């Protein structure tokens, strides 16, 4: 078995700390790093998320959200749409609005072909962060990771109350003792992009090139 034991490495670290001068404070006060404490989280989120290249839509209630999503799907010229199985805001209305007609609505991709050929992926979110304009998604049995990744268009549904102010608030949702976060979590702040080719901005590199967020007020 290659490598060494945990004891070996930790022993080396302990020896180093004993003979060296590495030192740090007894405690740190994170609050000085807080950027957003209060205010209109929806407005801030909208501004930051737009700045990051996401398209933000407002819906008064679930049925308006469903109409919005149906329009987006149509604008995308979509034939195959993935929708996250799990409960999320306006899901039922959206599923209803998209059922029937030309669109194939899939909530459990049966194979790669379906997964990689879908045109739009519709998900809920676990939370959103106003400070950076980020969506927070957690993987789970009802929330596969790929739905917000493989299709070129991602539509995320977000309820107003899901928006927290600051990254520090996101962090505290992970505090030991709180409900376990599961296996995988992602913060999404914009469409996939790169500037690796001589600083030219190109979107939709590996992840979706278009991200829509529908904020449902009700």
């Amino acid at each position, binding site marked *: 078995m290659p490598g060494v034991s*945990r004891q070996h490495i930790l022993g080396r670290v302990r020896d180093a700390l004993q003979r060296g001068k590495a030192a740090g404070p007894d405690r740190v006060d994170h609050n000085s790093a807080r950027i957003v404490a209060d205010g209109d989280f929806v407005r801030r989120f909208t501004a930051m998320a737009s700045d990051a290249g996401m398209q933000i839509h407002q819906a008064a209630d679930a049925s308006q959200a469903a109409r919005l999503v149906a329009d987006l799907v149509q604008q995308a010229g979509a034939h195959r749409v993935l929708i996250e199985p799990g409960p999320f805001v306006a899901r039922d209305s959206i599923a209803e609005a998209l059922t029937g007609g030309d669109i194939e609505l899939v909530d459990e991709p049966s194979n790669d072909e379906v997964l990689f050929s879908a045109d739009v992926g519709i998900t809920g979110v676990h939370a959103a962060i106003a400070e950076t304009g980020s969506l927070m998604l957690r993987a789970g049995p009802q929330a596969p990771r790929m739905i917000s990744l493989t299709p070129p268009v991602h539509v995320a549904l977000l309820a107003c109350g899901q928006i927290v102010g600051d990254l520090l608030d996101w962090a505290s949702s992970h505090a030991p003792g709180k409900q376990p976060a599961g296996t995988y979590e992602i913060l999404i702040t914009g469409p996939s992009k790169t500037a690796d080719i001589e600083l030219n901005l190109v979107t939709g590199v590996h992840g979706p090139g278009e991200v829509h967020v529908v904020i449902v007020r009700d």
Partner: protein
Amino acid sequence: MKPGRFGEQASAAVQDQVLLRALDRATRRQHDGRKELLAELPDALGMRTLASEIRERALSRLDVLLAQLADNIEHAGGSVHWAATPEQARQIVVDIAGQAGAKLIVKSKSMLSEEIELNDALAAAGLEPVETDLGEYIVQLAGQKPSHIVGPAVHLTTGQIARLLQEKLGIDYTEDPTALTRAARAVLREKFRAADMGISGVNLAVAETGALCTVTNEGNGRFVTSRPPVYVAVMGMEKVVESMADLAVLLKLLARSATGQRSTVYTNLTMGPRGAGETDGPREFHLVIVDAGRSEILGGPFWQVLKCIRCGACLNACPVYRKVGGHAYQSVYPGPIGKLLTPLLDSLRERAELPHASSLCGACFEACPVRIDIPHLLIRMRRLLEDDRYSGHLAKMAVRMWAWMNTSQARYAASSWMGRHFLDAAATDGWCRDLPLLAANWTQYRDFPAMAETPFHKLWNQLQSDDRSQPCPE
């Protein structure tokens, strides 16, 4: 002074006009972006100081945190491996691949994997590692090394990339960046679909929750960490912080410092393999914790370099890096932090040129989100080298003489008198165009002024006797 490896490479680099233009654009864009975004923060200096404290605290408790991290990962169903050397780290990863029957491997950006030369080991074992970060992929196709921590292909023009993809992927020649990106995307998508194993680095690990955080803009990191059945994260042992709040503070600074964004597009947290009932995610999750010289550094005077979160801000700020680019350093870690890390991880004596290749301008320290005092540490490293007579006995004698001359006004005055006459002999119209020995390195490119006829220490007496507002006679 004979130019060693860096000197020669640097001299060649500054004459490469194409490279210079590319570097100038890239570094300035990122540097200006950084300044703009930091100005948005209510207290950028305060936040950087906090970030520095967070990293210092973590390093001072590194054994405790690594143990906690490992416990949490194992509890969640992951496996933790420990490597003292690069060789061990390579072998661990190759073995994991072997046991899983993995052949095709997709990788997202990891400087550590470059450092330990992982791709070579994988290839030697008959495996196929594919870099999926667009810049890394391009550089890999070109058979080159990355030249910048954040933008690996920053040294290549669109034309060069177009020719490369035409040749390697068989696409039509196009200089449209979108078309080029789409071509690469299509190829890499197939790799993601078929990959047996994913390997990533770790930006930061959180001990308290056993979370590994990786950040990307493209989305390749998401595929690498979620799609293949086996996911391996390789991590330098210093990349741990205690809490999620610590992580949040560093994330606030990371994207701002690196590329002038409020946040990278994707911030992944992996806490374990696929959970019960989940339909995607890796079945096997491994973390390889690598020492490779870091515990040595931790116990020495340069332990502060371990605070580094590899944001690349110092590269963008550095006047030397802006002129020579990453390859001149001939190291995985270029730029200001590289001038310290490379001698420390490699050999101080053999890399002694690097800590000298700095004008000590301090732009790096100003840019560093965790406030590593790079100029101070460079001077300390230079001191170590001189304690070992790096510059030779003649230089030592010359400096001793200099100190002697400057510890008495009479000797100082005499030496300045001699200097003036020496320069006068070489000067025309107050300027020297051709000085000998070391000074030729100056006059080869620009003029050197002659000294003033009367130095101030002689002028003072005249000034005293003048009316306060009369111009000083020359």
